[in-house]
């Protein structure tokens, strides 16, 4: 690779000129221009037909010569789906496949037409209705007589019907006047058949095909979602030309507080207000822009009118305007009403978080690059020498022979299996990188095979697409093809992937896809995929498919037995089914540590629970304090990996002096102590769709003060985490929500009543974590060097009592790596409940069986006001035994010691 190229990707600050803003996006300009002319659609309600699954009718506007077909579906779980497409397009328009887990079960909607000019479709119970108004066309979503959402009430429905290209049209010129936009100048401006950006020309064989629609969310001021942006959790109002962009791009050192598109896209937005949460899932994989405008309910302070009238006028509202370059309008309305319901509705459509193998919740050590086997061995030994737990060693692109994935650099890694055996002996794992670009080299087997079978994305002219990436000139596997995915999956078989073993897992990077000399560092939109679809139709889902194929490959190599682990940089709605996501090339600055929290919260509420940010910051060199704070924050974020780019100083945890080494060690150990809780949370995400990392509003949906909080969050429902993200902090303001709640400092056991902000003094070793009264958190009392070394180590329980003196919590356990929990029900799901002085360990799911020899050896009860006189344990066989305990009156803490009851057995402990 030449120097110029390197510079183009390694330049510290992102060069924003490389990337488009809205003004450079032709379909945005077209929609803006057309919409200003305002030509409204009306529904032809006499055309209504009721099919088996959907209700169909035509909609039309004066400009459109042909009507559009709208379909409304009722879907199980209080979901509506609206599709709008051309009735008979010139050729089929792209409808995103493979994202919905299965064909969603439809429920029959009962149509009860209201007055003329309207149609009402109700669900079975009749509490949810779609009220369709004919002219102008509008749909109101009505829940229990309250209009919660209106569609097209602003008349921004926009649909460019496919046309015959002007060249062909010229032959039958006389037919009719090509009504609009044919002047040369207009063509430039509107980019109908050709769009220029920098020195790139996008030739569009299909011409303009963009779509758009508006949604008014009544009474909502808080909207979230549509990752990925380096932005606040709560979505901001967009101004002209500054819409949230969803277009997967490789943005090295992306700017923060910016709405430009970065590595992945989930076109799914959530809205929340007191009493209701809604979701709008816009299933479209082409470039998409989202405009948001919130009118808060403050107007009545300014009006002269009486309070009643003022209130009417002052009702808050958020308008969300979606625009996509191509495809059809296919939108799911998730009606909630609670956050938890919305999460379930969304995962019903796109799938839940894959159950990660336990090791992947440990700490990951990565660097571009660990140079050779010797380096790997030394770093691995460094962790033991400093007694820091870790689970996974990572190898970046340099481990390969000239960036040919699935190969090893023979000089640096002459014996990869021996290296993996070393890691295996400590029950650790290895992750190596595998990117979608394949070096053009006829002697490279992967290339030769893919070339021979036509497995690459093709260019506009029909040859294999060629672009520059790490290996130099490369072609890109077309993962949108099932055949290509199947073949790619087969490359992970142990017999095919030389030097791989069953402790090797995979990392998919650069899969936006990143193309160094392409427009906006990605693929030309008119590249051609399987089924002759243009890249523009499916750009945002390319990375999704690679991770899908990789995960499938890892499952297949174990004959379906083992759970995969695949990290991906690019993603789409539903990527949670295949593994983990990280926030890409961040920078070693405090502001990036801070923004990691809202970025991960946003991913979490859009289904992607297994997410993280590079600890320490990928680019640049963090000072010791920042690194420590980042480890502390990362220890409480789902995917926990230290990573650094090539030209940074080495930063293994022990390179910053003894004191900092100890602090990092402490942070990582806290992570390992909490692994039982983490694992249980992931199980809940997996089976019950609840995010692992939760914004406060999710846990406290009735408390307005929580709706904008993004410097702290809930881990599950039990722990509130407020990472320190400021340099030289001596105190942090922690908001403890819930007027009926009580919160306990997880280290000092000090407690506070909820609904207040407390000033917590912090030293460099403080990670402000608070346990919510009423919860039980399972922990490991002994920390080993990796999760695998802790299988048999004992458990502890942190029981934090609510104001009513009770607590509940769950615990999940399985073998940590296989699918037996699923196929053979080999798992343990326990429930701990504390009430009236009795702690009961009972079965939470009788279907599961998993023998564990682990014991609970310590129980800590926080908030016990009264000094107990005696504590007795009652084992399953009915035997009662006194338990030794210590009680601290000052902190109201009871510590039960010398305890040895099996974690999987029914028992109770009585405190008197």
């Amino acid at each position, binding site marked *: 690779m030449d120097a110029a190229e390197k510079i183009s990707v390694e330049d*510290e600050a992102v060069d924003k000129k490389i990337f488009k803003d809205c003004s450079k996006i032709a379909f945005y300009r077209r929609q803006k221009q057309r919409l200003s002319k305002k030509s409204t659609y009306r529904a032809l309600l006499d055309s209504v037909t009721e099919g088996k699954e959907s209700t169909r009718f035509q909609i039309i506007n004066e400009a459109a010569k042909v009507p559009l077909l709208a379909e409304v579906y009722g879907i199980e779980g209080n979901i509506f789906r609206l599709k709008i497409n051309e009735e008979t397009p010139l050729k089929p328009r792209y409808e995103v496949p493979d994202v919905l887990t299965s064909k969603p079960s439809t429920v029959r909607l009962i149509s009860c037409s209201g007055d003329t000019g309207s149609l009402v479709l109700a669900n079975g119970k009749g509490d949810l209705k779609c009220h369709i108004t004919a002219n102008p066309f509008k749909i109101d979503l009505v829940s229990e007589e309250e209009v919660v959402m209106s569609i097209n009430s602003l008349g921004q429905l926009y649909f460019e019907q496919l046309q015959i290209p002007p060249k062909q049209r010229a032959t039958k010129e006389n037919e009719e006047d090509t009504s609009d936009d044919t002047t040369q100048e207009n063509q430039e401006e509107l980019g109908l058949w050709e769009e220029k950006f920098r020195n790139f020309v996008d030739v569009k064989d299909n011409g303009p095909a963009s779509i758009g629609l508006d949604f008014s969310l009544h009474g909502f001021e808080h909207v979230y979602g549509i990752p990925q942006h380096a932005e606040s959790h709560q979505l901001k109002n967009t101004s002209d030309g500054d819409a949230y962009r969803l277009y997967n791009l490789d943005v090295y050192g992306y700017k923060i507080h910016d709405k430009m598109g970065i590595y992945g896209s989930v076109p799914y937005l959530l809205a929340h207000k007191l009493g209701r949460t809604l979701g709008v899932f816009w299933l479209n994989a082409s470039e998409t822009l989202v405009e948001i405008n919130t009118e808060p309910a403050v107007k009545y302070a300014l009006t002269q009118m009486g309070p009643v009238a003022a209130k009417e006028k002052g009702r808050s509202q958020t308008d969300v305007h979606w625009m996509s370059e191509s495809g059809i309008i296919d939108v799911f309305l998730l009606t909630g009403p609670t956050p938890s319901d919305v999460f379930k509705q969304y995962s019903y459509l796109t799938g839940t978080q894959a159950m990660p193998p336990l090791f992947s919740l440990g700490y990951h050590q990565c660097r571009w690059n660990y140079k050779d086997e010797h380096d790997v061995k030394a770093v691995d030994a460094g962790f033991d020498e400093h*007694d820091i737990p870790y689970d996974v060693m990572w190898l970046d692109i340099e481990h390969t022979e000239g960036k040919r994935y699935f190969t090893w650099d023979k000089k640096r890694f002459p014996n990869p299996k021996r290296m993996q055996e070393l890691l295996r002996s*400590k029950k650790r794992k290895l992750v190596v990188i595998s990117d979608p670009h394949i070096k053009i080299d006829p002697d490279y087997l992967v290339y030769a095979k893919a070339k021979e079978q036509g497995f690459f994305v093709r260019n506009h002219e029909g040859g294999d697409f060629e672009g520059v990436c790490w290996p130099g000139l490369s072609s890109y596997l077309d993962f949108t093809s099932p055949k290509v995915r199947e073949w790619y999956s087969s490359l992970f078989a142990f017999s095919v992937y030389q030097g791989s073993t069953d402790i090797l897992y995979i990392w998919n990077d650069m899969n936006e896809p990143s193309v160094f000399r392409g427009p906006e560092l990605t693929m030309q939109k008119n590249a051609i995929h399987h089924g002759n679809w243009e890249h523009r139709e499916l750009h945002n889902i390319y990375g999704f498919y690679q991770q899908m194929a990789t995960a499938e490959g890892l499952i297949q190599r174990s004959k379906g037995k083992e759970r995969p682990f695949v990290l991906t940089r690019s993603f789409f709605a539903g990527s949670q089914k295949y593994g983990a996501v990280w926030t890409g090339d961040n920078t070693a600055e405090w502001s990036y540590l801070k923004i990691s929290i809202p970025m991960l919260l946003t991913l979490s509420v859009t289904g992607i629970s297994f997410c993280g940010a590079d600890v320490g910051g990928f680019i640049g060199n963090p000072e010791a304090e920042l690194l420590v704070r980042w480890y502390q924050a990362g220890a409480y974020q789902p995917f926990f990996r230290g990573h650094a780019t090539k*030209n940074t100083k*080495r930063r293994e945890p022990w390179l910053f002096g003894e004191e900092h080494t100890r602090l990092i060690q402490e942070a990582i150990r806290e992570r390992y102590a909490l692994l039982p809780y983490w694992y249980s949370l992931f199980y809940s995400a997996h089976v019950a769709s609840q995010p692992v990392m939760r914004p406060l509003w999710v846990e406290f949906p009735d408390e307005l003060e929580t709706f904008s909080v993004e410097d702290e969050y809930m881990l599950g429902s039990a722990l509130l985490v407020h990472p320190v993200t400021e340099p030289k902090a001596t105190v942090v303001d922690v908001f403890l929500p819930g007027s009926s709640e009580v919160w306990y400092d997880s280290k000092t056991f000090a407690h506070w009543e909820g609904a207040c902000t407390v000033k917590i003094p912090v030293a460099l070793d403080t990670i402000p974590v608070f346990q919510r009264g009423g919860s039980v958190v399972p922990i490991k009392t*002994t920390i*080993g060097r990796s999760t695998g*070394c*802790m299988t048999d180590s004992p458990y502890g329980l942190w029981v934090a009592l609510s104001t009513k003196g009770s607590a509940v919590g769950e615990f999940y356990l399985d073998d940590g790596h296989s699918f037996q929990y699923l196929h053979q029900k080999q798992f343990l799901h326990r429930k701990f409940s504390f009430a009236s002085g009795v702690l009961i360990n009972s079965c939470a799911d009788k279907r599961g069986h998993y023998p564990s020899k682990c014991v609970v*050896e310590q129980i800590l009860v926080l908030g016990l006001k009264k000094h107990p006189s005696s504590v007795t344990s009652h084992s399953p066989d009915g035997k009662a035994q006194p338990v030794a305990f210590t009680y601290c009156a000052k902190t109201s803490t009871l510590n039960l010691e010398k305890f040895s009851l099996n974690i999987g057995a029914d028992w109770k402990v009585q405190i008197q």
Partner: protein
Amino acid sequence: MLLVLLLLPMCWAVEVKRPRGVSLTNHHFYDESKPFTCLDGSASVPFDQVNDDYCDCKDGSDEPGTAACPNGSFHCTNTGYKPLYISSRWVNDGVCDCCDGTDEYNSGIVCENTCKEKGRKERETLQQMAEVTREGFRLKKILIEDWKRAREEKQKKLTELQAGKKSLEDQVELLRTLKEEAEKPEKEAKDQHRKLWEEQLAASKAQREQELATSAFQELDDDMDGAVSVAELQTHPELDTDGDGALSEGEAQTLLGGDTQTDAASFSDRIWAAIRDKYRSEVLPTDLPSPSAPALTEPKEEQPLGPSQPAEEEDEEEEETEEEEGGEEGEDEDSQETPPPAGPPQTVSPTEEDKMPPYDEQTQAFINAAQEARNKFEEAERSLKDVEESIRNLEQEISFDFGPNGEFAYLYSQCYELTTNEYVYRLCPFKLVSQKPKLGGSPTSLGTWGSWAGPDHDKFSAMKYEQGTGCWQGPNRSTTVRLLCGKETVVTSTTEPSRCEYLMELMTPAACPEPPPEPPASGNRDEL
């Protein structure tokens, strides 16, 4: 428990009964007849709570053989190899940490006892190392002796040089005086010569101008009335002053100083100077030398890539002589170079007489004498500088910190290379480290000598080279050279553990410590 029993026969007779994970030295703290007091004294517990898999002591000392305490240590005897303390959290975690396998007695995995094998290997390595150390140390002693001697010699030489330096200094001073004396008459003679020539030059220039004026006057005086009139002047439109391409009556009159005509004398006195630059002779249209640029640049552009015209070249040489600052005059004539690359074009004097005539015999003799004095002086000055340089080098070398006994001195002024796949690394101790691509290309500096860089107690175990070539978006390259005991002096490895921070290993006898006295026979130590 069974496992332990099986292991017992392999143990040595000296094996004393002690709780699991306790070392022999600590064994007396664990007396089963008494309650156990934590080693930090923090608590006392009944002895049956030792190794009962529950942590009672803050320091973890009641659970040396289980993983119950987060901060305990487990002792492996490792008979046949070295005893080892491991974190007690690693007990029964499924990873074999002790070579005797005693840390995994209840985790379901069976650890092979590899102590014997490890011990054997270790002994071999130690033996080899001991052999190397002995030999290396022997060489080191020689090196020390060598340096002692060399140092003395150098000291002696230094004294000699310092003495020689004094007399050289005197000589330089003497020659300087002689030189200055010889330069005085030289300067006078040369100045005189130049002055004469310049006067001559001025005179001939004035005469030439006069001639030009006269001939111009004659040309202009069309009616030969001995006066140039306005009308006559107007026949030369090139004299136009307002840029309209024609010489109007008014303009002409202005040129004639307001008069309507002028006679030859006042023409050449007053008017000629004002019009000479524009004036085009009717006979030889371009003959007049022009002071303006175009004449010089235009032909250059038009010139085909043919042989250059020697005449022009001469002109330009000429011009340089005039341009040259008047500084050193002596050898100027010889040092003239071919065409000057830049500089504003000057009025070029085409005539031969512009060249300064050769010096007369007398002047030349002065010059020769002065030159000789100068040469002698410079030569003496050079040798003084050489001597000073040698003195400096010697002083530096003698005072250099070459280790406690100067054992590293022999590395001074040596260089050692290591060739890897891509690069040739070069270490010139106490000077620099560099890296050169194997397939050609210029070397990159990985640092120049900084200081000894070993830890305080072992300062001479490492060297630091700093301020090498800067890294792109990074620090300046630097290298740490670790010195290892070896029989030969050789660079054994170069790595880049952190970006642009290199680590080199140099084997040298000078790094060999004094070996312990020869061990009596063999097999004296239990643990190995």
